[in-house]
C-alpha cells in the first residue's frame, strides 16, 4: 500500500523528480547538490551527484520525453542537465537574469521551454535558441509584486499558473512566437500575447496566507491551489472564472496534484496526504486521509521509567514525539508516479524526515471508497 525508501541520513528532501520510466530518481537533500539514484535489483543505488549550484537547490524537474533535468537554486541560476552516451549528466548554465533566489521550476508539457519562479518578483520563461546554442530567458514582471512560490503549466503549453506570497494566484500567457505557433482560444481567454495576465484570483479578500501549490486539472479547465490559511480552492474557467474555496480544519497543505478530473490529493504539515473531491457543481469537499494514524503504544510504567532514565542521561525529560503517520515531518513534495492527472494510480511524497513514500492508490482504494477512480 505504501512503500518507504530512505536515501541516506534523515535530512529533509526538499524536492524530487522521476525519470520517464521511473527507474531513476533525482532528489535534493536541502543542500546545493542533486543526487541521482537508479533502481536496480538490489534496491536504490546513487549513481551520480549533480553538484554545480553554489546555494540550496530549491526545485528539480525531469522532462519525460526529452530526458532532461532542470534544477533551480537560491544562487539565482538554473542548470539544464542532459545525459551523455556514457550515462553522465552534463550541465548547461541558464542565465535567468534575476537578482534573487529561484524558487520553483517546471518543464512545459511539450518540453520546449521551462518556467522559473523567483524571489525577484519575476517569472523567467526560458527556451533554447538554436542559432546561438544557448537558453534565452524572457521575463514576466507585471503585475507581480511578490515572490513566486509555485508554478504549473496548462496542457496547451502556453498558459502558466503562478502562486505567490501576495496571497494571489495568476494565470499568464507565455506564448513565445519564435518557437511555437499561435495558440487557439481556451476557456481562460482568446488573446494570449506574451506576459498577458489571463486571470487573477485572490485567496481571500483580507489576506489569506501564502499560496503553496497550484495545479491545473488534466484538461486545463480548472485551477486548484492551496494556501497557508489551511484552505484549498478551485477556479472554474468555463463557469465564468468562479472560485470556490474550502476552509479545512487541517494544518496548512503544502503540495497537491489532481489524480483524476474530479479528485485532488494534497499533503502538507499534517504529514499525511488527504483526498479532496470536486462534485459536478464544482464544489470541493474533504475526503479521507490516505492512512489512519497507527496507535503508538505507550505503557504507563515504561514511560515513567524512560522519563527518569532520560532525565539521568540527558539532564532533561525527553518527550516522545513520534507521529502516528508514515511521514514524521511535513510533506513538501508530491509527484504522480504512475498515471497522469487524468487518472493516477501511484503517487510519491517526500518530507522533512528525509524519507520518500510511494502510495499505491489502487490498493488503498480497496479500503478508501472515495479513491476509486
Amino acid at each position: 500500500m505504501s512503500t518507504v525508501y530512505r536515501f541516506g541520513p534523515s535530512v529533509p528532501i526538499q524536492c524530487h523528480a522521476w525519470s520517464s520510466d521511473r527507474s531513476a530518481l533525482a532528489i535534493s537533500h536541502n543542500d546545493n547538490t542533486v543526487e541521482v539514484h537508479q533502481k536496480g535489483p538490489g534496491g536504490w543505488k546513487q549513481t551520480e551527484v549533480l553538484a554545480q549550484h553554489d546555494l540550496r537547490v530549491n526545485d528539480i524537474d525531469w522532462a519525460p520525453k526529452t530526458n532532461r533535468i532542470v534544477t533551480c537554486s537560491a544562487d539565482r541560476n538554473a542548470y539544464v542537465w542532459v545525459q551523455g552516451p556514457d550515462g553522465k549528466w552534463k550541465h548547461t548554465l541558464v542565465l535567468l537574469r534575476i537578482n534573487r533566489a529561484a524558487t520553483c521550476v517546471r518543464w512545459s508539457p511539450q518540453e520546449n521551454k521551462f518556467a522559473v519562479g523567483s524571489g525577484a518578483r519575476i517569472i523567467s520563461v526560458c527556451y533554447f535558441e538554436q542559432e546561438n546554442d544557448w537558453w534565452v530567458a524572457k521575463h514576466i514582471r507585471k503585475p507581480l509584486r511578490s515572490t513566486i512560490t509555485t508554478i504549473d503549466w496548462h496542457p496547451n503549453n502556453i498558459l502558466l499558473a503562478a502562486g505567490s506570497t501576495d496571497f494571489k494566484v495568476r494565470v499568464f500567457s507565455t506564448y513565445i512566437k519564435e518557437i511555437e505557433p499561435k495558440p487557439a482560444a481556451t476557456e481562460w481567454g482568446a488573446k494570449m500575447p506574451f506576459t498577458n495576465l489571463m486571470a487573477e484570483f485572490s485567496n481571500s479578500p483580507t489576506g489569506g496566507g501564502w499560496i503553496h501549490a497550484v495545479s491545473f486539472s488534466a484538461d486545463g479547465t480548472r485551477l486548484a491551489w492551496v494556501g497557508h490559511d489551511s484552505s484549498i480552492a478551485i477556479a472554474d474557467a468555463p463557469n465564468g472564472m468562479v472560485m470556490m474555496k474550502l476552509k479545512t480544519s487541517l494544518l496548512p497543505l503544502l503540495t497537491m496534484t489532481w489524480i483524476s478530473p474530479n479528485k485532488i490529493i494534497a499533503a502538507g504539515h499534517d504529514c499525511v496526504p488527504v483526498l479532496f473531491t470536486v462534485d459536478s457543481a464544482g464544489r470541493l469537499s474533504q475526503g479521507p486521509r490516505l492512512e489512519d494514524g497507527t496507535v503508538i503504544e505507550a505503557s504507563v510504567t515504561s514511560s515513567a521509567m524512560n522519563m527518569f532514565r532520560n532525565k539521568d542521561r540527558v539532564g532533561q525529560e525527553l518527550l516522545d514525539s513520534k507521529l502516528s503517520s508514515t511521514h514524521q515531518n511535513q510533506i513538501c513534495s508530491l509527484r504522480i508516479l504512475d498515471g497522469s492527472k487524468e487518472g493516477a494510480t501511484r503517487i510519491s511524497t517526500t518530507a522533512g524526515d528525509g524519507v520518500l513514500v510511494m502510495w499505491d492508490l489502487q490498493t488503498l482504494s480497496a479500503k478508501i471508497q472515495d479513491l476509486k477512480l
Partner: protein
Amino acid sequence: MAESDVETGDIAISYTGRSADDYMNQVQQNQRTFQQAAARNATKSIFSTLLRDPPYSHHPTLHPAQQLNFKLITDLLASIRTSDIPDVISSLGPEERNVMMKYLYQCMERPEDVNCAFVLSWHEKLVESEGVGGIMRVMTDPRSAAL
C-alpha cells in the same frame, strides 16, 4: 505599533468602509443589548449579533470602539457557563467562529486584562469544532480587532 508611528493618511479607516462613529454607535448599541440580555440571563442568544462585523482596523480613530468592543466580547464570553459553551459554538456560523477565535487570541495577548480561565475553556471547545485550521486562519488574517 505606537500611535505616533502610524501615518494615518495611508491607512483605511475600516475594511468595510464604515466610519469610526458608525462603529462606535454599533458597539454602544451592542453594549445595551448585552446589558439587557445579561439581566435576563439570556446571553446565549445574542452571540450572533455581537460577533457580527467587528471594528477591524489599524487606524487610530477606531481604537476607542475597539477597546469597548474587546471589553464587551470578553464580558460576553465570561458570562456563559462552561457546560453551555459547546451549545453556543454549534449555534454559530463559520465567520462568527472566526471572529470569536480572533478575540480569544486578543485575550491571550492581554492576560492582565482578562480572566484567563474562560479563554482556555472557549479555545479548547472552539478548536474541537474548527480544528487547527481555524487557528491558522486567525494567524494569516491581517485584520486587527484591537490594539
